[in-house]
């Protein structure tokens, strides 16, 4: 004998499946997938059907509970009148456990599944729009027979939609007409080496030992390098020895490079030149010099070691242009903007057209496209704007950028206390002189500006902001909770984000109340004992869902204006206020239900 709870839930689950199928049928019949590229059609249809289902979920649940219980309440009455109290508690237990199950399902749907589905729908639509943009540019270039220029656009379009007939046709045309155009090499992972760079973290004694060892093996450049590093942070006792090694090594370097016209001497002279660039902090020149040398003397340990050193030093300030080739299809976040207060009291407004994440092996690297920064001074007057096509965002230790950035962190020296640093200038990997950098307006503002822009905020806040730009509704709940107290600081409205947070946190309570009211109606208008359930009654379900949808929609909607008023007067306590009110309302409905079963 199957109990009434089993029957009710069998009915509810059946109705879930039916609603899901209806949503799928509707989406496939209305051909929503035609809005996106053919590669995405199926996934887009599935996701939009899920979106539709989630939008109707509160109404589906309420109507299924309403009808299910109104049919099966009669099945509780099998034990006769003597078990009145036991029967009552059985009914109450069954009802409340069902309500909590419904609430759990709706929380899972709203907070776990819905954000994923929503973002994938948005991404597919955005990727399709990108593809259209890329193809428009490609078509214009192809008709102008500018094959070389069209190639990168066609390749990017193909990376979005690999089987696009039009793009493939263009690709063939390019290859036929101009075989010399090769696809840009996939961006090599920037090599991180351990040969030289950790020297900075060594202690004086270790550096001195290294310098001594290099001196004894006649590696003059190494000896000078380590001795100079050691001298940056001298220990009083042995500073003299380091100074002697450095001076002596330098004399040897000078002597070796002036030794004559032999190829070894020429190579050594160029190595010395590169080394001097490093000492003068001209890392770009040093990098290109060692890169040239590396082409012909790849086996020379000095060359490869100092190439690595120069590259690492260079990459602290610039990035390579080829790093951003082909990343735009991976842009997940678009239209990012925020304001940030500078330590001098002024405000910067930062806008980025899109952002993509890339894992380069040593950590997360972000690339932004179409970056604009607009600076206002502390009197709120405009100072300058800069814009750049591509920039790279790194997270760096706050301690490296002076005390102004330390205020955010309790422990500024810990490796976790990082700030976002934006590299504005990119350089070519092979050829000197090819750079892409920011454009300033007015142009005078460019004078003396460095290629680095440090954001006055913790790196974690920056990551939150990239999410917040998509709107409070699209943020994940934990991110939203962390962002609400920060919203005003970065140019977002506290009210709006807090209202959305409250609505999302209170949504389960609203669902609970609505389903409780549905069960009250189910009890009042339940079937009498002995009545037979007729199949044709099933046709009332969609109407019931429609009624619930309008009523639930109205209450969920009205919660917004109510919250704004509450937030206006209660500020951050509005959440408690509304939660307490909702719990009270739920309590009242629960008591009404319990009293009804007493009749």
């Amino acid at each position, binding site marked *: 004998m199957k109990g009434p709870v089993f029957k009710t839930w069998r009915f509810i689950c059946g109705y879930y499946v039916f609603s899901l199928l209806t949503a799928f049928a509707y989406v496939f019949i209305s051909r929503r997938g035609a809005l996106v590229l053919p590669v995405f059609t199926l996934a887009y249809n599935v996701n939009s059907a899920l979106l539709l289902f989630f939008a109707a979920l509160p109404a589906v649940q309420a109507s299924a509970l309403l009808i299910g219980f109104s049919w099966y309440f009669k099945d509780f009455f099998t034990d006769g009148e003597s078990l009145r109290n036991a029967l009552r508690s059985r009914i109450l237990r069954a009802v409340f456990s069902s309500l909590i199950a419904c609430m759990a399902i709706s929380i899972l749907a709203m907070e776990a599944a819905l954000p994923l589905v929503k973002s994938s729908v948005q991404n597919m639509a955005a990727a399709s729009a990108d593809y259209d943009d890329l193809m428009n540019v490609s078509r214009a270039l192809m008709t102008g027979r500018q094959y070389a220029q069209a190639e990168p656009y066609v390749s990017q379009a193909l990376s979005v939609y690999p089987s696009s007939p039009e793009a493939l046709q263009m690709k063939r045309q390019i290859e036929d007409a101009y075989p010399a155009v090769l696809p840009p090499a996939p961006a090599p992972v920037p090599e991180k080496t351990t040969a030289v760079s950790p020297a900075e973290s060594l202690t004086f004694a270790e550096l001195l030992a290294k310098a001594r060892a290099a001196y004894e093996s006649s590696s003059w450049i190494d000896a000078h390098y380590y001795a100079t590093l050691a001298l940056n942070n001298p220990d009083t006792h042995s500073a003299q020895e380091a100074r002697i090694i450095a001076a002596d090594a330098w004399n040897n370097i000078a002597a070796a490079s002036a030794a004559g016209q032999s190829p070894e001497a020429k190579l050594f002279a160029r190595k010395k030149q590169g080394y001097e660039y490093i000492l003068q902090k001209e890392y770009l020149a040093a990098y290109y010099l060692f890169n040239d040398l590396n082409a012909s003397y790849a086996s020379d340990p000095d060359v490869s070691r100092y190439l690595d050193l120069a590259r690492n030093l260079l990459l602290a300030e610039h990035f390579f242009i080829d790093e951003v080739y082909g990343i735009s299809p991976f842009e997940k976040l678009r239209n990012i903007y925020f304001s940030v207060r500078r330590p001098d009291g002024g405000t910067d407004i930062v806008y980025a057209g899109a952002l993509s994440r890339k894992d380069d092996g040593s950590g997360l690297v972000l690339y932004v496209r179409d970056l604009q920064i607009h600076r206002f001074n502390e009197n709120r007057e405009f100072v300058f704007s800069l814009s750049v096509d591509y920039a790279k965002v790194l997270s760096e230790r706050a301690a490296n950028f002076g005390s102004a950035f330390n205020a955010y962190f309790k422990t500024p020296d810990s490796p976790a206390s990082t700030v976002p640093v934006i590299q504005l200038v990119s350089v070519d990997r092979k050829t000197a002189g090819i750079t892409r950098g920011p454009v300033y307006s007015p142009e005078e503002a460019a004078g003396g500006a460095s290629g680095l822009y440090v954001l006055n905020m913790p790196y974690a806040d920056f990551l939150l902001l990239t999410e917040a730009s998509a709107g409070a509704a699209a943020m994940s709940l934990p991110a939203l909770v962390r962002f609400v107290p920060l919203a005003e600081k970065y140019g977002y409205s506290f009210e709006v984000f807090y209202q959305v947070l409250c609505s999302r946190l209170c949504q389960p309570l609203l669902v609970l109340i609505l389903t409780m009211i549905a069960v009250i109606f189910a009890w009042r*208008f339940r079937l009498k004992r002995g009545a037979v359930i007729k199949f044709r009654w099933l046709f*009332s379900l969609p109407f019931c869902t429609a009624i619930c949808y309008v009523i639930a929609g109205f209450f969920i909607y009205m919660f917004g204006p109510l919250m704004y008023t509450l937030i206006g007067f209660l500020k951050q306590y509005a959440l408690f206020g509304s939660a307490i009110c909702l719990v009270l309302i739920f309590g009242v409905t629960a008591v009404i239900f319990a009293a009804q079963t007493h009749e």
Partner: protein
Amino acid sequence: MKSSLRAVLTFLSLFLILVLVAATMYYLYFDCRWLAAGSPPELRPPQLFVEGVFAVWDFCAVIALLPVLFYFIQFKTSPLGGLCVWFFLCALVFLVIQPLSFAVSGKYHAFAAEKYRGPLYVEDYDGTVFTPGVFRELNGGIVYFTAVDRDQSAVSGLLLPQKSGRAMAGQAVIIAANHELFKNISGVPDPLIVGEITLPPYMKQIMSEINALRQLGSRAFLPDVRLFSGEFFNAYSGFLSIGLAFLGLYAFAHFSTWRLLNVLFLPVCCAFILHVNYLLQCAGAGARFFSFLPPDFPPWGRAVTLNALILLALAAAGITGKLCKKDHPEEESV
């Protein structure tokens, strides 16, 4: 007798509660329309609440009719006594409350026009001052004010024009005082808040249909129409005949053994009656539908014919349901 009295009391108390709740929501909605993100809270004038009462009470009266039928469905009442109460309440709503609301709201508009330069919701409050330090989507771009004065004499900020959802590089506009942007935004609600409280499309549709029907009824109460003249009855009968169709809803008081089905039928039929009347009387679908009537048929007669047909159909359904139920008397036993 006692249950009839209870039904009337149910109607009156629900009517009162609905009016209070709906007027409060009206108040809150317009409160939010004038709210600028980041500005301190202020209580709007109570006049707004009064306007809310006038704006909602006629519709609330119609909605409050339904729970009376729920009452008849739940409790055993004599069918004839219930019918009498139902007729009385429908007459009360369509012959007293609705005409009163049309007459009074016309009077109120005249009064408000004299005293406050028009009702508050029409004025669209010009006091919204956009707060600085927040991004907003305005005029097809993203706007950020670094400073705003109440008289907008000292303003600075930035406008990032957007095209197909992206800001265009190199197109940023620096905003200073007297920028033309301000000509377009004075009196505009804060898009940040309004974006969050926009009505879903289906609710907008419901609201617009209710307003269209309301206009239909209020035509008889325009200042140049003399009360109870022939012109008045011509104009009001279209709206009044909706009441005729509402009488038919009583059919569902005793329709099916499964009482919840009766409850579900009520809002669906109520929406159906209102929607059909909207389509045929307000949205202009009437001419084709009524083509079977002789062309010299008076216009008010069409509406009465339509609603009389609905009434007949509902009555037929109700009687059939009652007769079918008689075949299975054993289902009635508790």
